[in-house]
């Protein structure tokens, strides 16, 4: 069943068409990768899905409903969460607080309850804390929960971002280059973690990634963007042998060396 259907998405900045008529369908419970050379429009595409940009054309349906006109916070509240290419944690909040912020949409305590700090609030806060701890254990950060986020090592920051995204009980999680800047060991751990996201928590995962080994090893489907256009789609086997994909990648590489 399709969890997310992006159909004929187009986004133009000034004269530049960043995303051109891209259609993408993501089935519930799958792991999908979006790949492409730098500047291919992948992050812009993510930004459209999460509501940060409004598409000039096309529609996004999430969980059967159109979300194209919604604000980012409304989309996040419906169960689509993301991480950022350049990590965007809340640097001066603790690790635990970062996860609690991710839980914002699930906390319903009315203003007066907060002021009175009554039983129902304490109950809710307690539950939120327990759940945050559980998520931190899931990503392996529970022992660092009282550190400030900015003091975490790089790899931990990536994992914290994932934990924060998970805090909103998302159906779909968009990971923007989750292993960028990681060493091979960390990348292996991250691959493992992404797989566990789906296997243990049933979250559908879409990721933008440059590390082909990782992409090939965990993705069930791969879409390739180049110059804002989707040039190929399919499983690893199909993509590896697609001539246009090879051209897009090698052409670019050749351009670099020349």
């Amino acid at each position, binding site marked *: 069943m399709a969890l997310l259907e992006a159909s004929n998405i187009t986004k133009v900045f000034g004269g530049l068409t960043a995303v051109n008529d891209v259609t993408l369908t993501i089935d519930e419970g799958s792991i999908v990768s979006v790949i492409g050379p730098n500047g291919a429009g992948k*992050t812009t595409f993510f930004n459209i899905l999460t509501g940060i940009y409004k598409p000039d054309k096309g529609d996004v349906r999430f969980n059967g409903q159109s979300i194209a006109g919604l604000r980012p916070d409304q989309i996040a509240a419906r169960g689509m969460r993301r991480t950022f290419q350049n990590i965007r944690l809340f640097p001066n909040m603790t690790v635990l607080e970062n996860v609690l912020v991710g839980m914002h949409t699930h906390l319903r305590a009315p203003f007066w309850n907060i002021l009175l700090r009554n039983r129902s609030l304490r109950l809710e806060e307690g539950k939120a804390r327990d759940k945050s701890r559980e998520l931190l254990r899931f990503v392996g950060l529970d022992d660092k929960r009282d550190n400030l986020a900015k003091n975490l090592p790089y790899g931990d920051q990536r994992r914290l971002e994932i934990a924060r995204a998970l805090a909103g009980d998302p159906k779909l999680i968009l990971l923007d280059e989750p292993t960028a800047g990681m060493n091979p060991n960390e990348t292996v751990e991250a691959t493992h973690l992404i797989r566990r996201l789906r296997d243990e928590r049933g979250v559908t995962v879409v990721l933008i990634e440059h590390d082909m080994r990782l992409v090939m090893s965990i993705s069930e489907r791969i879409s390739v963007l180049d110059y804002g256009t989707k040039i190929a789609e399919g499983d690893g086997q199909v993509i590896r042998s697609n001539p246009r994909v090879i051209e897009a990648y090698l052409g670019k590489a050749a351009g670099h060396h020349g």
Partner: protein
Amino acid sequence: MVAEANVSKQNLQRQRTLQTLRTVFMPLGQLLLFIVGSAAVLGLIVVVVAFFLSRSDPKIMQTAIAILPQVMIDGMVRGFLFATIALGYTMVYGVLEFINFAHGEIFMVGGFVGAGVAYLLMQWGLLSTLPWIVFIVIAIVMGMTVSGLLAMATERVAYRPLRNSPRLVPLISAIGMSLVLQDVVRLIATSSPLGFNARFETPNFGKPFQIASIPLGERAIPVQISPKAVIFIVAAMLMLLALNYLVNATRLGKAIRAVAQDRATASLMGINVNQIISLTFLIGGALGGAAGVLFGMNIGTVNPYMGFIPGLKAFTAAVLGGIGNITGAMVGGIVLGFLEAFVASYLSLFTGGAFSGASYADIAAFSILILILIFRPEGLLGESTTQKV
């Protein structure tokens, strides 16, 4: 071959000169456009409102039209005041993204230096014998030097140690600096012959230029501009030109722009960031000092607290025009000046005296600011920046 190369070199040079001229003079054109535009728009509004009101009292229309040219001149002069101070704000903001709250005081110091120079010249009996242009040049150069160095010194002492702190920290330091400067100048002024309220002596510039004379009833209302105001406007335009040249056509300007874009990268490119920031303060302070001298000369008095309100207004003007943008600062100042002059002159006329125009000029200025920023959050000439995610 050689000749050909020479020709193309000459061509290139000519092209470059043209380019430079364009970048330097285009803002002046933009500025004139805004002056004419604001005057026209506001004038039109006045005429339309007066037309509707004149049904009940025909005198309103007469008076409104009769004072209109003078109001426009008032607005322009006032606008140039805000504009010249705003230049310094915008320079510093452009480079450091920091509101230099003490800039109003730098402006005030310039005014005091000018008054001091004039006082000394008068004591020596030179004030009436020197050609006026020499007097103005001496006063402005002195004012620029002292204010520029002072601004540089304040940066060194109060802002540089805080450069990597959260944004609010240098702001508070600047507010502290503003209090300190006010009182230090007061201390110096009250111990000197100038006194708290110092008179700004000037050579006799003569009567105001009579531009026209508009009949109102049996009388004629003169349209005039004082020679001092003309000097003010000319000097302000020269300042804009010079600043534009400096920022857009010199190596120093390129370095300043580079530091403004990205301090870390600029320093990697071999630019001495500290030095450039110091120079930025020097230039901004010197502009403020020149504005102070011109303002003091125009008004006739200076006092240690005169910088605060014009400083605020100038900052408003800088924001209105798009802070960080040099022409924007000028344009913002002009628009603000026109607005205040129009409200001050017309509000009580149009409301039959119920609302005193001069009292509501501030409110009008700030309301327009809020309105403009709602529809153009980046200011009149500011570039809209899409946040990179």
